[in-house]
């Protein structure tokens, strides 16, 4: 419902664009274009939840709202945008040269935008207008090369703003891995704002790996959307390791009969950071299969909100979906919110959800310590083990190591008191 209004609003907004350009003289200094857009849409009377930062706006994060006291309905989305300009660098593409790569999205076949589900219309407009890194990757029919396409995006003091908009279109029977890797210099105030969309045609198999290992002072807002046609398969690995208040979402639509999706998420929360993630798989086609797995480690005073939704649309007969979240909490002050939602409008489906949250098993900890490991070392080992099943799915060892390193460091710093 909300989505409809937002779409409507985007349309209205485009029509209004001419007028508003003239009115923009009344804007506040330092106010980003997106901020103004949002404000215009929401109006000044829109209630702001407490604890919202200066450059944040409240956006709805649940497909179906629930009572406000569960604190999962809304979240603050960072809205401070960059100055227009292009972000240097290019994608590393395997040597065969068969992949079509364009730096603009004008040719993109846009029938349905899956990323739009969690993306307020205004933010979409903002991305359309201000992206400084655009990639349209078209994977030709029958392509099966093993080497991944790599996008290394490193944010620095010179290039602190990245707005990336990537569209991957995999033609029939192709098979591809795309690895997008976000890093930044520690201590730099960098900002990333991105969108990645996948369209997998018949029997195509796309694996998308997004590893966000930004520095702790970085801002990060990210949207993923994927559509799988008949027999296609989407594998998404999402690592949210760094950034101050990472805000991300992933919406996968299993449109064609027999399509599959596997979504693996791994997150690390430490310090006073706040993580907000929404994942959803929509079963639209018959006999579709999905699995969402999330593994996380939480430390110190961090707050995490993870919403995962399985949505079985009427007609998705013979589909099966499973979601699972395991959270390891290592400090008494963490705040761990989960909303595992299952929506079902079809009889002939199987949906499963399991969530477990708890601390380390003291017996295992004791065992490891009796073997000569210090408490911190033992905890490092166990935390690494907790996330390893997802981390191992990242096809690049250096990134795996970087994530493990971050987990170890976080425990060294924050795990002691636990």
């Amino acid at each position, binding site marked *: 419902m909300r989505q409809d209004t937002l779409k409507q609003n985007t349309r209205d907004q485009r029509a209004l664009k001419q007028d508003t350009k003239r009115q923009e003289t009344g804007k506040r200094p330092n106010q980003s274009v997106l901020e103004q857009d949002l404000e215009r849409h929401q109006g000044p009377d829109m209630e702001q939840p407490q604890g919202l930062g200066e450059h944040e706006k409240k956006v709805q994060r649940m497909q179906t709202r629930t009572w406000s006291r569960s604190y999962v309905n809304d979240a603050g989305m960072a809205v401070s945008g960059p100055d227009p300009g292009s972000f240097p660098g290019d994608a590393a593409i395997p040597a065969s040269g068969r992949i079509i790569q364009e730096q603009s999205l004008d040719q993109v076949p846009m029938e349905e935008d899956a990323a739009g589900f969690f993306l307020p219309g205004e933010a979409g407009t903002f991305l359309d207008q201000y992206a400084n890194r655009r990639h349209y990757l078209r994977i030709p029919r029958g392509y099966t090369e093993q080497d991944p396409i790599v996008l290394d995006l490193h944010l620095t003091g010179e290039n602190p703003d990245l707005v990336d908009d990537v569209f991957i279109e995999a033609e029939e029977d192709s098979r591809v891995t795309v690895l997008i890797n976000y890093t930044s210099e520690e201590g730099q105030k960098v900002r990333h704002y991105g969108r990645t969309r996948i369209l997998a045609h018949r029997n195509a198999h796309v694996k998308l790996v997004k590893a966000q290992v930004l520095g702790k002072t970085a801002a990060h807002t990210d949207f993923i959307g994927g559509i799988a046609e008949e027999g296609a398969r989407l594998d998404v690995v999402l690592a949210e390791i760094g950034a101050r208040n990472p805000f991300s979402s992933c919406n996968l639509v299993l449109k064609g009969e027999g399509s599959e999706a596997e979504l693996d998420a791994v997150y690390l929360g430490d310090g006073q950071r706040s993580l907000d993630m929404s994942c959803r798989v929509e079963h639209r086609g018959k006999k579709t299969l999905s699995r969402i797995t999330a593994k996380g480690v939480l430390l110190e005073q961090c707050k995490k909100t993870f919403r995962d939704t399985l949505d079985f649309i009427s007609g998705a007969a013979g589909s099966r979906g499973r979601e699972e979240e395991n959270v390891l909490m290592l400090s008494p002050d963490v705040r761990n919110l989960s*909303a595992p939602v299952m929506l079902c409008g079809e009889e002939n489906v199987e949906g499963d959800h399991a969530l477990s949250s708890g601390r380390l098993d003291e017996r295992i900890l004791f065992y490891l310590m009796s073997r000569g490991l210090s408490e911190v070392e033992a905890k490092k080992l166990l935390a690494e083990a907790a996330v390893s099943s997802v981390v191992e799915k990242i096809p690049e060892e250096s990134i795996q190591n970087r994530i493990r390193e971050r987990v170890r460091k976080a425990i060294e710093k924050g795990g002691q008191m636990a």
Partner: protein
Amino acid sequence: MEKTGNLKNTGNHTDQMAKDRKAREAEKLERQKAMLEEADRERFDFRDKDQSSFKTEKGLTSEIVTEISKMKNEPDWMLQHRLRSLEIYNRLPMPDWGPSLDELHMDDIVAYVKPNTNMKSDWNQVPGYIKDTFERLGIPQAEQKSLAGVGAQYDSEVVYHNIRDELSKQGVIYTDMETAVREHEDMVRKLFMKLVPPEEHKFVALHGAVWSGGSFVYVPEGVHLEFPLQSYFRLNAAGAGQFEHTLIVVDKGASAHFIEGCSAPGYNMLNLHAGCVELYVREGATLRYSTIENWSKNMMNLNTKRAVVEKNGTIEWISGTFGSHVTMLYPSSILKGEEARSTFTGISFSGKGQNLDTGTKVVHAAPNTYSTIHSRSISKDGGIAVYRSTVDILPQAVGSKSSAVCESLMMDSASRSDTIPSLNIRTDASDVGHEAKVGRISDESVFYLMTRGLTEQEARAMIVRGFVEPISRELPLEYAVEMNRLINIELDGTIG
């Protein structure tokens, strides 16, 4: 054109006959089903002529609220409470989540309907038509056999209240809420709508303004009630609201079982039920609160129930939701003392035109508290069953454990079944688990049972009974039998 049509008809003569036969069979099945539905509802659906002695105007104003208070001869603080609640009601918005309440027009609801009798403690003094009603519902019979006390409410007022002598000698109080406000004013004033304040949400505020009837129970320290107490709420008037208030205090080390039953006849206009239940479970005490709700399908059931549990205390919720048009009901437990426990066992069966949004909330507010949630739902014929829950583990609730298992059964694709839980965990020293499942009756199971000689219908009914068994075994026997009967009827004629 016509010619070809004729030819086709002759050519497919046998097909046509087969089709006709099928159609006839389907029609027969439909008729049977309709009959069965009627037969089932008949027990609840009979209605009496409106013989009320007093009714307020439709809608809600401070005059109406003052009038209700005057009729009841209430102390001034209660009138002030009502007026304050009304003010809050007018201020609060409708909920922005959950099922749509657009059909509800408060201006059409009559808040207070007084039957033409006062409360009696002997069924023979209750006017005949009201006594008949409760006899048909089986209340006086059950009282004889298996209950420690009975309260019966007809529309807005309690018409009968009685408790076994030996219990009142032990200091057990079981009376209607109005009497309690007058005779146990100190206790009631301290507790009334303190657990569920009118600020909570719009319908609690409404309840605070126009509440009428309900039961008050006090079980003194160390007293164990062997038999359950039962209050039965019957809403007869069309287009009316029922707003009973139930307040139960189980003192230190005591135990009790309270059963709440609700029903109403079917009307074409919407009725509203916005009751409020406040349960105080003191140190080491145990309370089991069972509800079997079988409102007619024109009822908006927007009920609020909450328990606060002190050290070593236990609250057990048993909740069956079968009737009503829209239900929003989430019994909640606040585990306030160390090692307090709560269990929630719920079942809902959502049929045609029903949107049953049920679930539970648990707040772990003390160390080593435990909660278990066990919910099952069935949706059929376009019914919507929603399970909604929140488990809050507060920072001080070190060593707490919570586990939830939630299973939904879809009988056809016209129905919906949604699971919307949220968990808010604020200490690492806790173990929280949540499991949910949605699915249908598997063909394999049906096939297996059929190879053992059952018909398909028997097989499915058996599987559904098995599905609800963990809930039905928690119910008092009469209710378990009743539930099984209800399920058999609901399932009949749907398969084939």
